[in-house]
């Protein structure tokens, strides 16, 4: 259990920008009248998480220390470090700062610190700032791009130009926003130099209880063009009230995900209209009269909380003033964070905290006994982590995506520890179905590859490599092998009822081929629905459809997607083991993985006995998968040899001469036709009647022409 009392450590971390490091003093002595709670400094982040990089600005009135921290805010300079010894906490909170006077709600008109929306430069639209998200950002990444402009009081509508200075750094948790001094352009096109521009290096969620914005020689400060970008649909929509400058509550629409949020929230300078080197804080007032409201101002807090990681003390006082507890502040939202210091996207209203039975309100980092991973505490009913996670929810269903060729072993690895899944959810709830198909993935994938994602999280295997899976977007098709059924007798004996043709199609079973398939090339296509495993097979003879068959190529692996509370590792382990067993059962002799089973042994098994008694019809879901994988044409015909071994394939010529063979044609009788039988010959001539009859009778018998 951490004891934060008089705990001061320094950790120097080189930032991407080079030599800059950041540090924060957490010693009580470094804080002016700051209670030793450190709650306002940073969250319960542990070393190695993103929150290690969150600076805190526990400035104080100690000139020396203040000066040291002041230097942080000099553009390009400053050294500070950050350390984190706090225990993990399930909460993170973003809350407003107060100034040294402890004023929280003091806002005023006129010169205010305002985080306004991006204002386009009508004169030079090309100079309008544009923020581009260079890379997909996860829920913990927020681009916080403040630029502080100075403008003359009374001209809040000045259209100012900011620079596009936001960029993401390589480290996903380590990005740096910079604003620079700039030249402003009035709406009428005239230029004027801002008195000064605040330049600062701001980390996301730089919320602390004291936020020092060094300004100098500036009459007033507007904080313009701060935009939050959140690329993930991860957060729960929150509704909250915001007060305008008159203290009137306002309602706002819920935050929409995946959009850049322009907001306007005043950076209120508590009680002081003239900026100075004192502390400033972000307030949550919406200064609608100044700028067009585009988004709830609370979005700042929300998003800051979203990626921020602080937890609040139940009370803190600055300058001897005890502020109202954040727990009871309806304008304050707590963002949930799991045990790994990762936000879940859920928010809890401050006033709800008090009445919540599942939030551990009783323990705070100021308490030496604080242990957010433990149970108990004031109001907590158990392990906070479990409690928090149990109340988690998916960000939204959306459309189910199907992926093929998810290596089972890698998946097991990735999902083995469900706590690593950032949403903190039972990942099995993300799984809609899990099947193995007896087809290669190339049947379906057409070369497409999408990262395999569950709950918005790209899964990685044990080597931290993204699990590559191909996104399924279409059914698959394979061609049946082409088989030509060669006649044996080349006469009526090749057809029904003398000869019977049957065909076996894997997954579909046996069916009778029509007699006219004799002598034709049998081909076809098998269409496989990878989502259900349903197979439809078209069998063709010389291109003409002969039969349409059905079957199933999938083996459903049993898993219970609602197995909430079960460790997915255990379930998935069982699932994979089952699949493996199934795979082994199908693919002999042994199969170690689900994919890539060889068929050599299977081919030996599949050599079909000619006397195989065919099974009729399909046998239900996936059971035909246990069948054979060859296409067979089975021909049942008259014997081709007699009992003495003589061939019976060809009808003897002598038979033809003695008996002829069915003709049924109208012919012009010609010499050399050989045996000719005519049942009712039409003979004319001067022969006697008796001769005519003899000829007719002769034809009935058959005459040799």
């Amino acid at each position, binding site marked *: 259990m951490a004891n934060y009392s008089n705990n001061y450590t320094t950790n120097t971390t080189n930032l991407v920008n080079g030599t800059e490091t950041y540090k924060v003093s957490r010693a009580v002595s470094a804080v002016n009248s700051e209670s030793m709670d450190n709650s306002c400094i940073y969250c319960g982040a542990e070393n190695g998480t993103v929150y290690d990089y969150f600076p805190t600005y526990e400035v104080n009135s100690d000139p020396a220390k203040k000066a040291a921290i002041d230097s942080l805010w000099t553009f390009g300079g400053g050294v500070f470090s950050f350390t984190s010894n706090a225990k993990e906490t399930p909460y993170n909170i973003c809350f407003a700062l107060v100034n040294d006077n402890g004023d929280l709600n003091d806002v005023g008109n006129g010169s205010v610190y305002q985080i306004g929306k991006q204002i386009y430069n009508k004169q030079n639209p090309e100079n309008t700032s544009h923020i581009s998200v260079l890379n997909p950002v996860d829920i913990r990444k927020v681009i916080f791009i403040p630029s502080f402009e100075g403008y003359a009081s009374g001209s809040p509508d000045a259209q100012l130009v900011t620079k596009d200075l936001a960029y993401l750094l390589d480290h996903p948790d380590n990005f740096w926003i910079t604003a620079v001094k700039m030249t402003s352009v009035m709406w009428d096109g005239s230029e004027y130099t801002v008195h000064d521009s605040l330049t600062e290096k701001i980390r996301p969620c730089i919320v602390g209880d004291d936020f020092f914005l060094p300004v100098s020689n500036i009459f007033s400060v507007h904080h313009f063009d701060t935009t939050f970008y959140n690329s993930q649909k991860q957060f729960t929509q929150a509704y909250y009230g915001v007060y305008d400058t008159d203290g009137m509550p306002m309602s706002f629409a819920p935050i929409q995900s995946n959009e850049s949020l322009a907001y306007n929230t005043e950076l209120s300078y508590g009680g002081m209209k003239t900026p100075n080197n004192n502390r400033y804080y972000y307030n949550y007032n919406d200064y609608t009269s100044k700028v067009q409201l585009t988004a709830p101002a609370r979005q700042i807090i929300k998003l800051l909380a979203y990626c921020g990681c602080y937890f609040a003390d139940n009370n803190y006082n600055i300058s001897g003033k005890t502020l109202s507890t954040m727990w009871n502040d309806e304008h304050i939202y707590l963002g949930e964070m799991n045990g790994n210091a990762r936000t879940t996207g859920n928010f809890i209203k401050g006033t709800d905290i008090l009445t919540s039975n599942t939030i551990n309100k009783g323990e705070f980092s100021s308490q030496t006994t604080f242990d957010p991973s433990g149970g108990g505490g004031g109001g907590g009913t158990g392990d906070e982590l479990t409690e928090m996670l149990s109340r988690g929810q998916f960000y939204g269903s959306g459309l189910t995506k*199907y992926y093929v060729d998810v290596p089972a072993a890698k998946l097991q690895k990735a999902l083995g520890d469900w706590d690593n899944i950032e949403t903190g959810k039972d990942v099995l709830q993300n799984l809609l179905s899990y099947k193995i198909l007896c087809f290669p993935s190339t049947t379906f994938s057409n070369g497409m590859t999408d990262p395999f994602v569950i709950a918005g999280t790209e899964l990685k295997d044990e080597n931290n490599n993204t699990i590559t899976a191909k996104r399924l977007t279409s059914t698959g098709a394979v061609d049946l092998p082409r088989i030509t059924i060669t006649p044996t007798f080349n006469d009526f004996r090749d057809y029904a009822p003398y000869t019977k043709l049957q065909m076996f199609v894997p997954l579909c079973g046996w069916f009778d081929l029509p007699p006219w398939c004799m002598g034709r090339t049998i081909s076809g296509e098998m269409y496989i629905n990878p989502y259900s495993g349903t197979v439809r097979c078209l069998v063709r003879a010389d291109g003409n459809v002969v039969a349409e068959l059905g079957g199933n190529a999938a083996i459903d692996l049993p898993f219970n997607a609602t197995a909430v509370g079960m460790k997915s590792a255990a379930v998935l382990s069982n699932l994979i083991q089952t699949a493996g067993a199934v795979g082994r059962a199908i693919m002999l002799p042994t199969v170690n993985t689900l994919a890539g089973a060889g068929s050599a042994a299977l081919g030996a098994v599949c050599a079909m006995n000619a006397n195989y008694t065919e099974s009729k019809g399909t046998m239900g879901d996936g059971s035909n998968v246990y069948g054979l994988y060859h296409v067979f044409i089975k021909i049942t015909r008259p014997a081709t040899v007699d009992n003495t071994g003589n061939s019976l394939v060809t009808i003897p010529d002598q038979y033809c001469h003695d008996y002829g063979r069915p003709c049924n044609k109208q012919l012009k009788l010609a010499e050399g036709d050989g045996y000719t039988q005519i049942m009712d010959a039409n003979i004319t001539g001067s022969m006697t009647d008796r001769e005519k009859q003899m000829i007719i009778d002769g034809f009935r018998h058959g005459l040799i022409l």
Partner: protein
Amino acid sequence: MSITVKTGKTNAEYFAVTKTVTNELSHTVSIVYPCDILNPTFSLKGGYIDANYLTGAFGRKYWITNQTIDKGINYIHCTVDPWASWSGNIYGTDQFVNRSEKHYNPMIPDDKYMIQNKTETKMLPTSQGADFIGTSWCTVMGVI
């Protein structure tokens, strides 16, 4: 009444329309009356004639069915060969032929041709029915 006929030998089948006659010899024979032109008898002085076929009488062709020799007279008994005699009325005519030695349709079932009861079953070579599935597998996951 005397007529000149030819006798000869033929190996043709009885039901053959065209008959090749060899060793033909001409004879002057007398018609024995009463005469049935379908079954005539001719007389000839002399002995046995080595022939089975006679042509030239009554415009017909005849099988020599028997020879009766008495007191130096050979009585040749004949029966008409109607299809050979009237081959000209047979060849070239259009007829609906039921069975034919040369012009048959092999696909018409021939009920005269007796097929033994025994059948055999044959599988087309598995090299043709090669595995087209089951050589490799894939897993499909549906993910929300």
